[in-house]
C-alpha cells in the first residue's frame, strides 16, 4: 500500500515539475495511460462492455496500420479502439490514430488529441510513425462514416483516396482490417441541423432521439454492446515502395480492405446479436 502511495507521489512530483517526456508528436504516454485512458476505462468496461476478437492479428512490436470503420456521431469508437489495443493486447500497444485537421484547430481537443498520441491524417505523419515501427490507426471514412444517419448503420462509406494504403506500401507494413460493432447505436443520428452546423463550421450537427431534446442528458451515449474485431493482416511487403505511386494498385487494395472490413462487420454484428442485450 505504501508502495502505491509513494508511486503516486513520484507521479505527482514528475507531473508538477515537468520531468516527463513527450515525443515529437506531443504524445505523453504517462498522462495517457494513468489519467486520460483511466477516465474512459469505465465506459469501455462497464458501459459498452467491449469485447475484442482476433487480437493476435495485431503484431506485438512492429509497425502496422489498423484500418477501421468509423461511426457513432461522436467518435468514441476511436477512444475505445485505443483502450482495446492498450489494455487487451499482450504488449499493451499505444495506437497512434490519424485525425481530421478540424480536431487540431479546436482548443482543448487539439492538444488532448496530441497528448494521447494522435496526429493529423497526412502523408508525412503517417509515414513517419510507420517508419518508427508504431501501430497507426486510421478511419478512412472520416466524417462521412462517423456522421452518417442511423438508417445507414453498418454500411461502410467511401474510403477516401486510399492514402492509407499508399502509406502502408511505402513502409512495407501489414494492414490490419478492424471492425467496430456497437458504436452505431450510441447516438442514433436521425436528423442533421445543417444550417447551424455550417454556421458553426462543423461537418454536421446531429439530432438523436435524445439530443437536443433532453439537453445535456441527451449527450449520454446509449449503452450498446460492443465488439471490436481484428482481421487477418493484409500484407504489403511483396510490393516495392514505388508501387505506392501506382493509383490502380492502390485503388484495388483499398477496395479489398474495404470489402474485408464490411464482411467482418456483418459477421461480428450477427455474432453480437442485439445491441442492448439486457433490454431486448
Amino acid at each position, binding site marked *: 500500500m505504501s508502495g502505491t502511495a509513494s508511486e503516486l507521489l513520484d507521479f505527482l512530483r514528475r507531473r508538477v515539475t*515537468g520531468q516527463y517526456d513527450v515525443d*515529437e508528436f506531443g504524445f505523453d504516454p504517462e498522462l495517457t495511460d494513468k489519467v486520460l485512458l483511466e477516465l474512459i476505462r469505465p465506459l469501455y468496461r462497464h458501459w459498452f462492455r467491449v469485447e475484442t476478437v482476433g487480437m493476435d492479428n495485431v503484431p506485438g512490436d512492429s509497425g502496422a496500420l489498423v484500418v477501421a470503420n468509423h461511426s457513432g456521431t461522436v467518435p468514441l469508437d476511436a477512444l475505445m479502439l485505443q483502450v482495446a489495443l492498450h489494455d487487451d493486447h499482450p504488449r499493451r500497444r499505444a495506437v497512434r490514430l490519424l485525425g481530421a*485537421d478540424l480536431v487540431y484547430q479546436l482548443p482543448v481537443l487539439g492538444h488532448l488529441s496530441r497528448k494521447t498520441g494522435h496526429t493529423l491524417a497526412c502523408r508525412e505523419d503517417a509515414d513517419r510513425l510507420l517508419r518508427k515501427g508504431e501501430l497507426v490507426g486510421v478511419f478512412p471514412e472520416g466524417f462521412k462514416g462517423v456522421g452518417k444517419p442511423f438508417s445507414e448503420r453498418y454500411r461502410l462509406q467511401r474510403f477516401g483516396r486510399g492514402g492509407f494504403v499508399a502509406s502502408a506500401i511505402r513502409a512495407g507494413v501489414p494492414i490490419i482490417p478492424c471492425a467496430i460493432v456497437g458504436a452505431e447505436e450510441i447516438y442514433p443520428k436521425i436528423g442533421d441541423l445543417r444550417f447551424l452546423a455550417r454556421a458553426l463550421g462543423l461537418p454536421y450537427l446531429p439530432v438523436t432521439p435524445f439530443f437536443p431534446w433532453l439537453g445535456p442528458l441527451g449527450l449520454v451515449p446509449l449503452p450498446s454492446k460492443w465488439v471490436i474485431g481484428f482481421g487477418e493482416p493484409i500484407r504489403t511487403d511483396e510490393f516495392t515502395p514505388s508501387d505506392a505511386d501506382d493509383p490502380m494498385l492502390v485503388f484495388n487494395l483499398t477496395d479489398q480492405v474495404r470489402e474485408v472490413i464490411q464482411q467482418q462487420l456483418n459477421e461480428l454484428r450477427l455474432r453480437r446479436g442485439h445491441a442492448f442485450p439486457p433490454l431486448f
Partner: protein
Amino acid sequence: MTQTVLVTGVSRHIGARVASVLAADPAIDRVIGVDTVPPPSLSRDGGVPSDRVEFVRVDLRSPDIAQVIAAADVDTVVHMSLVSAPPRSGGRALMKEHNVIGTMQLLGACQRSATVRRVVIRSTTAVYGSSPHDPAVFAEDTEPGEHPGHGYAKDACEVEGYVRGFARRRADVAVSMLRFANFMGPGIDSPLTRYLSQPVLPTVLGFDPRLQFVHEGDAVEVLRRMATEDHPGTFNVAGDGVLLLSQCARRAGIAALPLPAPAFRLMGDLVGDLVRGVGFTGYSAYSAEQVRLMRYGRVVDTTRLATALGWRPKYSTAAAFDSRFATAARR
C-alpha cells in the same frame, strides 16, 4: 590555404560568439565582424577573448559591404544578421529593411566576388509557420500549407528565396542555410526568453504547443562547422526532443495563466505598453506569428544535419531550456 571569414551581426550574442570561436581557429587567418553598431565586447560571456576579430561598422543596407568583401579577399561569409524583433529604435519597417535589403546587398556583393567560396546563412524554423493543417514534424523539404505572412517569419522566407536564387546563380559557392529553432541559453535575449521570463506565464487557453530549442553553444558549434567545412544545403537545427509549453512553465516553476486567444494578444499589447511606459524598451508585444506558435507549436526533423555533420547537439531541447530556466529548488 589561407581563410578569411566575414561574420555579419557580430554585435549580438551568437554572432559575437561565432566570430570569436572562428578567430580562435588556427586554420583561419582573419575574421572580420560587421554590424551596424559596435559589439559591446567581443570577449563577453566566456567567448575567447580575441583582438583577432576585426570589427568594421557597416550598414548592410548600403553597398559598402561589397568593398569590405573585395578589400579583404573574403572566402567565407557567415550571415547572422537577421533580427527577430523590431529594433529598439525604429519599427517593423526598419527591421524588414535590415533583414531583407541587408541580405540582398550582402548576396549581391558575394555574387560579384571572385573569392567567396562558402556562404552560411542563419535562418529560422519560423519559415514553416505554425498551423493545425501541417504535419507534426517538418523536414527540410516539407512544403507548409500556408506561408507565414507576417514579421520575422516572412522576412526569413524572403531571405531564403534570395539565398536560393544566389545558390542557383553561383553554383560554385557552397551555400548552407541553417533553420534554427529558438535559441536558448544563459546569454540569449530574445522575444521568447523574455516571454518565458515573466513572473506569470500567459498561455492561450486550450492550447499546449510543442516547442524546440537549440542551446547557444550548440548553435555556435553548428555555425563553426558550417563555416569551416562544405555542407551545401538547407538544414534544420534543434536540440533533440520536444517540450510542451506547459512543461516549460512547470520546469521553470512559474504559474501558467491560460487566457482565451483574444485576451492573450491584448495582454501582450497591454504589458508591452506598460513596460515601454516605464522606459523599458526591451519588451515587445506578441506578434501574430508568436500567437500562432503559442497555439500550434512547431517541431522539426534534424536528421539531415546529424547525417551531414556526423554530430548531434550536446543539449537536448529540455537540457537547453533547463540551462536557462531551471528552478534552483530542483536537484
